[in-house]
């Protein structure tokens, strides 16, 4: 029996690939920063990623989105991808992973 479906495996793969996208101001990746809320893959819709920024009007928003698109374009050539910037729920420090907290010297 397979633990993960093919779609799940792709989603896990996307999750790890997004660790290559670094927030230029903080110097840590967007997964550990807790910016990525949702990763979904289906054969029909392709890749859909919902993410937020640490604050509205963040000047690095464009750069982060460009980097995500570049990573997806490079590694997941077999499908379309869509990246949505959302503001609910509002990002807060509770979303940062333990690895991110360590990188940011948080308790």
């Amino acid at each position, binding site marked *: 029996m397979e633990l993960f479906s093919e779609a799940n495996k792709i989603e896990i793969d996307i999750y790890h690939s997004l660790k290559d996208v670094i927030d230029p*101001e903080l*110097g840590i990746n967007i997964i550990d920063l807790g910016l990525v809320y949702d990763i979904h893959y289906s054969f029909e819709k392709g890749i859909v990623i919902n993410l937020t920024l640490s604050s509205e009007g963040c*000047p690095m928003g464009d750069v982060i989105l460009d980097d995500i698109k570049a990573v997806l374009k490079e590694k997941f050539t077999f499908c379309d991808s869509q990246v949505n910037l959302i503001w609910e729920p509002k990002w*807060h420090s509770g979303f940062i992973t333990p690895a991110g907290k360590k990188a940011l010297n948080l308790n």
Partner: protein
Amino acid sequence: MINLDLSSRLSFRLISLHYITATINFFIASILILCSVESFLGHYFNPRLLSITHILALGWGGIMIFGALYQLLPVIVNSKLYNIKLGFVAFVFILLGVFLLSFCFWSFNVGVLMQIAAPILLIGVFLFSINVFMTSAPKKKTIEYEFVVSAILWLLVTCIVGVLMVFNFEYVFLSREHLHYLTLHAHVGAFGFFLLLIIGVSSKLIPMFLLSTPISNSSLVYSFYAINLGLVLILSDGFVFGSIDRIFFYALLIFTGILTYLYFIYSAYKSRVRRVLDIPMRKSMLAFIFILLLVFFYISTYALGSIEYTFRFIVSTGLLFFMGFISILIFGQTFKTFPFIVWIAKFKDTKNRKILPKDLYSEKLLQFQLPVFFIGFLVFLLGILAQNIQLLYCGAILFVITALLFFINVMKIVLYKS
């Protein structure tokens, strides 16, 4: 979605031009301070001091802030800059105006050349203002936007009062003495333009850089109304009733606005996620301590009965504002903003993104610059208060070294090669 278009070559050039020019102007100002330290011993209304003040206020602080605003305004209003080419034209007028005006003050040429210089500067500021106002207003009017817009309006008022004073040198048409209007000009320029603009931009940037939890902006709203009301009272009393006697009380109203703004910054600092601050942010935080010192010196100026001490405290207050508060904020924020635009322009290709904006400048140099500046500032301030020329020379030498270190670090960013 924010579209900064920072990778555009033209936008990159416009912003870089402002940062580099302002950095050079700071170096020029520090050399001029060294060459004329004796000017800091007497009355504040003297040609050398007026010249240095205008280079510091407009050539250094002004041009740097204009460049930063071209970069940050699109962030604040979530829109593209109205016209980049207009930014270049405004830059030429402003730079030419500042140099001619400063030269005229230095040589105390209050004739035709100054009457040409002042309107040139006014045109430059007017063109800059058009660019700011025409850059689309945000869908949701934020308090930060209101601060920026009112700051630009006060800048125009400051320049218009300045132009009137220039022409009043030759064709005496203003009813009161020159110092009366100089007081109004200085208050509106310092609190109206610099302070409001810094509050508007920093109230957006500081919580962003500190990763602060959302803070209520009610203290900012109070600050906005208190400072603007104080300025309106200063100007109307000064022009309509011809009095500057009550200016101290209006300034107290402005100071309540400063204190509530500092409370906002303190709240952002206290709720920050980033516990360890980087050097640029540490410098920025120091600037807020300087503004408290400034308030203390301003109040002391009025509290002192002796005219001799009053002059010393007025010059010290000016030093605290331009060399203290404004300069140290620029020293910090330059390395939080400028490396990003250069980084985006130079590393547009995502494959090169292993280098981060903070890698573009030397942290060691920045770290070294802080004590050099700080010691220089304290020594120079003591020199003014104690009327000691040796201390003034020592402080001025350290200012020149500070300016040189800052220039090297800015050029390191500009010339960075991957």
